[in-house]
């Protein structure tokens, strides 16, 4: 090894350690009895108990926020990928006037701050009696998820060779049939990666879920964890157990699709 590559390896080793430590510590602590959490904590666990996880799913009824999050994030993803997919196809592969401003609009909407639409969305949802309901979360979620989905899918559709639909259309297929029969199967990996990213963003969302729900019956996972309070003190053991439970599905999904996800996330930067 040259000295330079040794420095690089050391930097990356440090990175992996720094990344992993908070997770390691949270996992260890989530199995540690509450009374010992702040008594001379040691890096290596001594007593491990399942109490916090048990309390999470019995006393805390943590299934409810998990169900809420699955429904809201699932529905948001389904709507965005289907409607956004059609839009992205047109933007990526059809010629029409107004395409550039449309792409600009979508990009602009995807970067504008969520807080700037909280007040009208709250008033609107209140008038429609949708506060503290599933549609009352799914609709606001489309504001950030739809532009994200379209933007990612445009990137994926553009990577497919241009001759594909032409060949199909020479064979007499219409443009829509070419989309359905030729492009869609090839775009499936890209669609899957996009769906996962949209799901992850919706699963993690906090501001809207906090603003537009009122009680535990419709709270999503991040809101439920953030508002965990004990009667007398902060129940850290349960909070950490919940944090691990909330993180696990996201971690699994992202690891399973890491190559595609990195490709989707970075394609914008590569094209400059």
């Amino acid at each position, binding site marked *: 090894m040259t000295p330079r590559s040794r420095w*690089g390896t050391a930097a990356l080793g440090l990175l992996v350690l720094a990344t992993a430590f908070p997770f390691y510590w949270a996992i260890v602590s989530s199995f540690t009895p509450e009374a010992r959490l702040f008594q001379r904590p040691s890096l290596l666990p001594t007593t491990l108990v399942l109490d916090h996880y048990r309390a999470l799913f019995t006393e805390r009824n943590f299934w409810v926020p998990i169900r809420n999050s699955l429904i809201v994030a699932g529905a948001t993803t389904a709507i965005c990928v289907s409607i956004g997919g059609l839009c992205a196809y047109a933007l990526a592969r059809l010629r029409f006037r107004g395409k550039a401003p449309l792409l600009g609009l979508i990009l602009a909407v995807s970067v*504008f701050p*969520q807080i700037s639409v909280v*007040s009208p969305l709250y008033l609107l949802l209140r008038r429609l009696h949708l506060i503290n309901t599933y549609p009352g979360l799914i609709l606001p979620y489309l504001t950030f998820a739809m532009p994200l989905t379209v933007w990612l899918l445009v990137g994926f559709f553009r990577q497919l060779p241009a001759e594909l639909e032409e060949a199909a259309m020479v064979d007499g297929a219409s443009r829509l049939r070419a989309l359905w029969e030729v492009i869609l199967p090839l775009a499936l990996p890209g669609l899957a990666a996009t769906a996962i990213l949209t799901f992850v963003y919706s699963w993690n969302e906090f501001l809207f879920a906090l603003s537009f729900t009122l009680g535990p019956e419709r709270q999503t996972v*991040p809101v439920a964890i953030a508002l965990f309070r004990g009667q007398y003190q902060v129940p850290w053991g349960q909070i950490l157990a919940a944090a691990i439970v909330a*993180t696990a599905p996201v971690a699994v999904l992202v690891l399973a699709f890491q190559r595609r996800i990195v490709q989707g996330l970075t394609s914008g930067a590569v094209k400059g």
Partner: protein
Amino acid sequence: MRAGEGAERREARLAWRLVAPALATILLIALFPLLWTVWESVHLHDLRMPWLGRPFIGAANYLEAFRDARFWGALGHTLLFTVVTVTLELGLGCVLALAMNRAFRGRAVVRAAVLIPWAIPTVVAALLWRFIFEGQTGIANTLLVDAGLVRDPPVWFIHSGLAWVPVVLADVWKTTPFVALLLLAGLQNIDASLYEAARIDGASAWRQFRYVTLPLLKPAILVALIFRTLDAFRVFDLIYVMTGGGPGTSTEPIALYTFNSLLQNLRFGYGSALSVIVFLITFALALGYIRFLGAGLTETRA
């Protein structure tokens, strides 16, 4: 060429039909609410005092914001947080991307390791770091005392200055990996033969970095800079969970103050004025960067 023109028109018509549902959604749930926010911001609208109605009061909400010390404080905190975290993240991200760009074993492990903090809920990241710095006998304080770095471990979250340390650390921990991935993608686009040519010319490692890597990486750096700045400027989840804006309002960012004005104080007119201000600043930042980015792009291409 009438047939060709017909085909073109058919293609355009199909395109608009495919675009319509998504476009309608975006107009209805993003642009229309934005206009509504502007409308609310020039009215007095207090949900606690419905008998006042919703009279038009012109720029009064904005004038109130300009005289409001808590608003200026929140704006200051947001700018401080943005400058500090974005600088740290781009610096560290650049170093990590350069390290990752060298071929080595275990690359997949590193990529997985860097993706996970980025993918987890910000709320979770905030809680993990809050727990690490919690109390006088949390793990951070224990390690600091054991290492002999401090004698009297501080209670981080009751101190208006120290409370920022875990907040910034948590943000850097969560987003540096993402910046590194963006920059790595840019690095991998650089033609290896350029380095070879530089080496043949006898350029040192530093000169190679300065005159080959940096200029060619500029577009990727600018993209990362835009996304990180806009993201840091709207920081909410992290601080809501870690400090609640406290102690007092000493870590309250503008998004949290806006949220509190709306949903705690129920002052929808005033909160909407704050929302519009946040939007305008974000918009100005984005425009500024895009001009900068555009210039950067033509420069590297020339």
